[in-house]
């Protein structure tokens, strides 16, 4: 089994004392998952700004939630009501460590309107990634 491939032992593999596997675990830990919640109309702009940085893929979902903006008041036939969860777009991008700083900065700058409700960026450490088509694992799979 060569480096960068994935065995049926799964993520448990790099917990073994084997040296090769320990090396692989180091490489795996070089990945981060960036999760950003932004205003929906900023999505295209953010995507366009991120692709030149070397972002090879992202997952996008329509979500609802609240932050400091809370909800917004709407009015229907003369009666006001609160919409407590506002629609946002959630991005998830898995990248190598060296790209994280520039991506976070780009998202922050591009998705910003300066008004309340612009959203947030979160960075998680990412333990494993596997490309389903080839079985490649770790950073090679990104």
């Amino acid at each position, binding site marked *: 089994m060569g480096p960068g491939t994935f065995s049926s032992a799964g993520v448990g593999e790099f917990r073994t004392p084997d040296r090769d596997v320990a090396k692989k675990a180091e490489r795996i830990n070089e990945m981060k998952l960036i999760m950003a919640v932004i205003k929906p109309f900023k999505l295209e702009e953010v995507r366009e700004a991120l692709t030149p940085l070397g972002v090879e893929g992202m997952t996008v979902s329509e979500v*609802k939630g609240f932050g400091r903006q809370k909800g917004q008041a*709407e*009015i*229907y*036939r*003369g*009666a006001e*009501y609160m919409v407590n*969860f506002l629609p946002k777009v959630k991005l998830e991008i898995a990248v190598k460590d060296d790209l994280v700083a520039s991506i976070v900065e780009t998202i922050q700058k591009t998705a910003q309107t300066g008004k309340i409700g612009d959203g947030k960026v979160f960075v998680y450490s990412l333990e494993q990634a596997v490309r389903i088509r080839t079985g490649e694992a770790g950073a090679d799979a990104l």
Partner: protein
Amino acid sequence: MTIENLKHMFSKSAARMAGVMGAAVLLLAMSGSAHAEVPGESQFVFNTFSFLVHGFLVMWMAAGFAMLEAGLVRTKNTAMQCLKNVTLFSIASIMYYLIGYNLMYDGVDGGFMGSISLWGQDDSAAAAGKFVGDDAVGYSAASDFFFQLVFVATAASIVSGTVAERVKLWAFLIFTVVLTGIIYPIQGSWQWGGGWLAELGFADFAGSTLVHSTGGWAALTGAIIIGARTGKYSADGTVRPMPGANLPLATLGTFILWLGWFGFNGGSQLAMGSAADAIAISNIYINTNIAAAGGVVATVILTQLIYKKVDLTMALNGALAGLVSITAGPDTPSLGMAMIIGAIGGVIVVVFVPLLDKLKIDDVVGAIPVHLVAGIWGTMAVPLTNSDATFYAQAVGVVSIGAFVIVTSAVIWFVLKMVMGVRVTPEEEESGLDQTECGLEAYPEFRGSQTI
């Protein structure tokens, strides 16, 4: 061919017979007192044509109501609302044949109701070529029957929107049977059947009171007896809005109703066999149109001023309120006056929609302000432009028909409540009537609009 063309033809032949040629003489012949009468059979054809085509337009208002209501309810009740609309139109069609027409028109003679019998067709005079004289009828019997029947369906549609999202299907359908078969025809006989209100001098050209207020009173009674949708009003009196699912559909429904209203009011001229009728119908069309326009503009301006936002659903109600307002007398006002009458209908919407909420009367689509209140306003406005009408007779008409419809509707709703129940359980209401009463969904592939 229009009446105008017809008149040209007759003028021409008259001129030829006199041996005089030339356009000047033709014009003289047209404007002179010696203008040729349209032959009886032509009048018969044009009157029948008017009843049928205007009747088709009014029939199409059923589509307008269905779309308006489907758009203003939540997705979980959409299929139910469509089902009620197609079924109520069908019930009205059948009930009006079985009992309604003759109860409204046969042998009323200044009284309080007609006869209880099936509608029967009698075209014998026309079939025998008799178009003038006492026995002659100026239109085919079936065209008249059809034109009157589509008005009944309109009254029933009004109820359906108000009591939406919580009424039991079968309770509603049974109410519709009684409304279209008995309640509507009896009060209709008082005026259009030549009953006591007609003799009193009451004026209701196309039915602000007879059709719209009647539907509105039945809807109001139903809304009170059935009660508001669960959760609509909290104990402290605050309103929890339940926004309609599809405002484009509600807008399309409103435009369909607006178009159909040309049939409703224009056809109520009841004849198109002379230039005078053609002129009257044309005036009715433009008055009808500008009343709707006045209603919309009034609601758009008022909602902007009051709420700092323009409410589309109230603008749509404004169009309909303008139309209902002009319906009692679309023939007599000037264009400017028709616009004002319609605009006041729009004001009524903006005032009465929140007022009903304050009273905790849950009217899902705004049918009570639009059809009942604007209907009363339109009826009372007739004497402003029609010297044949009096405020006294108008008030007697509004009050007597109102009292009759409230009492009869309340009896029916209460009996239904005791016998079978008039509303679904809170659990069924929560799941939506599409699922619990129809067993299907209107939008199975959409995620609900109010999810999360």
